[in-house]
């Protein structure tokens, strides 16, 4: 039978509408093996204090809603088991570098706004094909590997909370937006790097990154935003100096066509009106 440990949760409570300063509230939660921090917060909300504000959705590290500061490190609450923290007291605070809406819920609007400025979608010259697609764009497995890791971003904001530059420079685009910029610039199907560069090629863009690496350490999906930013810098410099391989965006795959079978139809094939069914 599993042992149930009594874990002390110290949770930052804050409601901007009250006008009161943030304070730490304590709750004791019975934590069986396998319980996540998010489960603990649910327990508190369901049994101890229903006014606790927590945001969550998928509970399986896919949606990125439950990002928060757990024992001074940015984590997804649903992706952090209480046992792995190896502590009897768990301190939970809202994500830093964001405005608090209430308790553990922060306003992620700046993250989405900065993300949008980098045009995180395919840009190609074939406007008609982009509006009304007729086929797929070709891509080799090697081309896929060049950006696949960076496409795993779930926009949870953990990297932004961990970044020391975001903490001091409110104009800095941040690791999430810059990594997603490279996710598209590094995609062989995309041709929009020159449209994105004016947004990111500035002091508060990619050049503001000091390569502290805190974003990559915090990312629960292994995106490694710090690597993406360095690759974005390399891409920008090589384009500016005219170095490196110049590659056109990959073409459309040929539409499927009706072909005659190369092998004769076996005798045992069921035929309808003399043709294979």
């Amino acid at each position: 039978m599993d042992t149930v440990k009594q874990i002390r949760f110290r949770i930052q409570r804050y409601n901007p509408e009250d006008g009161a300063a943030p304070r730490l509230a304590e709750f004791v939660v019975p934590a069986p093996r396998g319980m996540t921090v998010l489960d603990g917060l649910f327990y508190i909300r369901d049994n101890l204090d229903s006014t606790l504000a927590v945001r969550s959705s998928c509970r399986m590290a896919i949606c990125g809603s439950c990002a928060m500061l757990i024992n001074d490190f940015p984590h997804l609450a649903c992706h952090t088991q209480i046992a792995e923290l190896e502590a009897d007291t768990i301190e939970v605070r809202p994500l830093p570098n964001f405005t608090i809406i209430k308790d553990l819920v922060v306003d992620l609007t700046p993250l989405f706004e900065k993300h949008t400025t980098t045009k995180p979608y395919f840009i190609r010259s074939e406007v008609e094909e982009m509006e009304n697609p007729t086929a797929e764009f070709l891509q080799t497995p090697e081309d896929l590997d060049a950006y696949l890791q960076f496409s795993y971003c779930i926009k949870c904001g953990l990297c932004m909370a961990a970044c020391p530059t975001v903490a001091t420079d409110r104009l800095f685009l941040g690791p999430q937006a810059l990594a997603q910029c490279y996710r598209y610039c590094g995609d062989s199907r995309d041709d929009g790097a020159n449209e994105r560069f004016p947004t990111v090629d500035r002091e508060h863009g990619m050049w503001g990154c000091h390569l502290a690496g805190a974003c990559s350490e915090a990312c629960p999906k292994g995106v490694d935003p710090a690597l993406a930013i360095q690759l974005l810098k390399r891409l920008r410099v090589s384009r500016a100096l005219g170095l490196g391989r110049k590659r056109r965006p990959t073409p459309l795959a040929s539409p499927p066509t009706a072909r005659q079978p190369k092998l004769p139809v076996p005798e045992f094939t069921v035929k309808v009106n003399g043709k294979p069914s």
Partner: protein
Amino acid sequence: MRDTYLWLLQLVTGAIIAVFLAVHMVMMHLDNIVGFFGGHISEPSSWSSMIDRAKEGWWLTFYIIFLALVLYHAIYGLRGIVLEVIPSGRTERVMTGMIWAVGLGAFALGVYASAHLFTR
């Protein structure tokens, strides 16, 4: 585009400074180690040695280039720090103006001092 070149220039100056600094350190402060390998540098930090070096065209050129590299590398880095701590368009304009003024002033002073010693 402008920021790309400014950043790249800091990267390049940093790499060149590493080489120049190595030469400077060996000549000025590591005379014992140079002596260990059979070389001989006589009291490099003394006033007369400095004056002697200042009169050599090779050293004059070396230090003027070194000064330009260090000034750019350091002041551009300082600009980045200030813009990060006080992020605004106005800060950027003021900092860029100050950088030009301080950088050119310090470079002019260094070149003047070197040229003065060279022709002394």
